[in-house]
């Protein structure tokens, strides 16, 4: 039998991307995970669901987003042409809304009227608060107290839109602990609540569901780029925290002749605790319900991570990225705090676009790649969000 060369028919029915993914979760969640698998496979075939998703994506979020040729940035790099996929222009200021709307719709179809979410930078919490208001659902957001301090404007936004923001004062007081608390809430209230997870992480089917809702990013690139420029881009770059904007960007392109690069948070150094680069500097293990790459010590305890960008400051990564890394389809490279900060300022000055610190990691990597390539090479970078939220932390430094 001839094997069909595709990386698209993952995960398998147990949620595995090769050896990664699966359901490493407490039994109490199993019925809810099964219910979600079943509901999603039904909704995937449901035209009404797709129509509603499409309508909200276009009228509420502002899709499709433009692909912008960054002329001065390209000139600065002096090599390949750099294009920005403008997810920063979406309602709420980041790609997170793509997933939030999709999952809120699932919750609606499941008859669940309460949304639980975790947030690090507050961007996913904000997106969840938005859809909570949009659908009239009770919304509870778990956020580490350390993140609450460094992302105060987003906390205010969430509260204004009616979400209950619950401070998490455990462990490292950041995103990983917020995920733990959100899972505990779900375990307790699983019959009335949907856990609107914010990235391509967690037990199956979350990595698949979030990837699918974020894939609108890559689909738009795949549609628009050849129309305008005659062919697909040569290189596509996205930043990787949990990995949702990157998975959504890459997935529609994995079978195409396009080089894919993920930019991870290299922080202030390669030793554990100084970065959040699970794929490029971590090792494989179980975190938050999936077998994937993570930052851990020798015994397997999760180590608190570091990144200047709260949205990338997470010790795990989506299992599909672990799969792409292992089969060599995507290259993952660390970008340091310093490089990201420099790029944050550079893009603001040259293009009048203030990128999120997360996205600045991706642009920084794209600039490095552009310098080594010829002028007819085209690079698309997913600009996952806008940087207004980061002004205090950047300018205060």
């Amino acid at each position, binding site marked *: 039998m001839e094997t069909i060369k595709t990386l698209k028919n993952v995960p398998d029915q147990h949620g595995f991307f090769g050896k990664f993914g699966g359901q490493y979760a407490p*039994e109490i969640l199993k*019925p809810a995970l099964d219910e979600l698998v079943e509901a999603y496979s039904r909704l995937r075939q449901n035209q009404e669901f797709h129509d509603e998703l499409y309508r909200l994506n276009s009228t509420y979020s502002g899709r499709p987003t433009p692909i912008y040729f960054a002329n001065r940035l390209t000139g600065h790099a002096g090599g390949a042409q750099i294009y920005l996929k403008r997810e920063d222009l979406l309602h709420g200021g980041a790609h997170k809304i793509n997933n939030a709307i999709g999952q809120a719709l699932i919750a609606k179809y499941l008859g669940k009227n309460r949304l639980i979410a975790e947030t690090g930078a507050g961007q996913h919490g904000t997106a969840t608060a938005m859809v909570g208001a949009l659908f009239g659902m009770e919304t509870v957001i778990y956020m580490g107290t350390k993140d609450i301090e460094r992302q105060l404007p987003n906390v205010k936004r969430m509260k204004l839109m009616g979400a209950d923001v619950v401070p998490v004062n455990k462990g490292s007081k950041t995103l990983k602990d917020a995920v733990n608390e959100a899972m*505990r809430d779900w375990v307790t209230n699983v019959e009335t609540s949907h856990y609107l997870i914010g990235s391509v992480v967690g037990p199956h089917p979350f990595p698949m569901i979030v990837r699918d809702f974020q894939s609108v990013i890559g689909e738009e690139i795949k549609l628009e780029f050849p129309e305008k420029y005659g062919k697909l881009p040569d290189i596509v770059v996205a930043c990787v925290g949990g990995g949702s904007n990157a998975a959504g960007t890459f997935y529609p392109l994995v079978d195409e002749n396009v080089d894919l690069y993920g930019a991870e948070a290299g922080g202030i150094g390669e030793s554990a605790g100084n970065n959040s680069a699970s794929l490029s500097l971590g090792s494989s293990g179980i975190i938050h319900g999936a077998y994937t790459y993570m930052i851990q010590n020798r015994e397997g305890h999760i180590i608190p991570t570091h990144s200047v960008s709260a949205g990338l400051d997470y010790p795990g990564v989506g299992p599909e990225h672990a799969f792409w890394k292992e089969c060599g389809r995507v290259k993952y490279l660390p970008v340091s705090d310093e490089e990201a900060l420099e790029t944050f300022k550079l893009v603001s000055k040259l293009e009048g676009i203030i990128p999120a610190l997360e996205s600045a990691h991706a642009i920084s990597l794209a600039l490095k790649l552009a310098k080594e390539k010829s002028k007819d090479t085209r690079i698309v970078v997913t600009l996952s969000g806008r940087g207004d939220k980061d002004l205090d932390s950047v300018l205060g430094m």
Partner: protein
Amino acid sequence: MDATTPKFKRKHSNGEKLVAAYWVLGYPSVKESMSIFRTLNEAGADIIEIGYPYSDPVADGETIQDAIQKALTEGVHLDQLWKVSSTIANYSDPFVMTYGNIPFQFGLEAFVEKAKQSGIAGAIFPDLLPEVYPNVLKGIPPAFLISPNTSLERAEFIAQQSQSFIYLITRLGTTGGRNFQDKRLEKLIHSIKSKRNDIPLMVGFGISSQSQAIQAFEQGADGIIVGSELIKKYQTGGKSQVLEFVSELKEVAAQFSGNS
């Protein structure tokens, strides 16, 4: 049943009701936890669950989380687990309860080997469902969890997969005392026991009083598991309270023994 059959299985087949006691290794210090494990022995706990601390204990409630956090700062490591199990094995049946990433990083085969050498009679990994439970790891007889929202069909499947005991959670949520979900629980207990009775059906995650233990036995449980409540007792009244509570539960168990 042969010479290697663990004590708790013999007791079960003799119609004795069981009490399992959970404690976190390293809480409040490594030394004190060793002494508490001795106390649990003295009180007559039939199974002693050694909670091995993990940095991200998602299935545990506030009380145990805090104890785990403290234990981690005390610098607990696996050598202590092997050591304490070997000691416990002289009197009772030690079980290890921790999260999947610990054996994954140690190496599954090496973990099983060490556990066997240390007399560990069973293992509980709350984040390893039967579907993803590595075969090698079954070298330590697994106790799988069944929760109140598990379907009857799935409960039977899980019961079949279990090799040491069957761990029935009494309520939705994490470890720690709260309400029983009576009707559903009783139905589950009967359904499971009608399919599998060679290993005990243990009930846990909510036992904080003698009356709850009585209720569990009345509903048909073969044994009960206490954890969070022991930590609370210790925090208010020290080791003597722990000893007293486990002894009381043993009395309750004795009242129900022999009439299964």
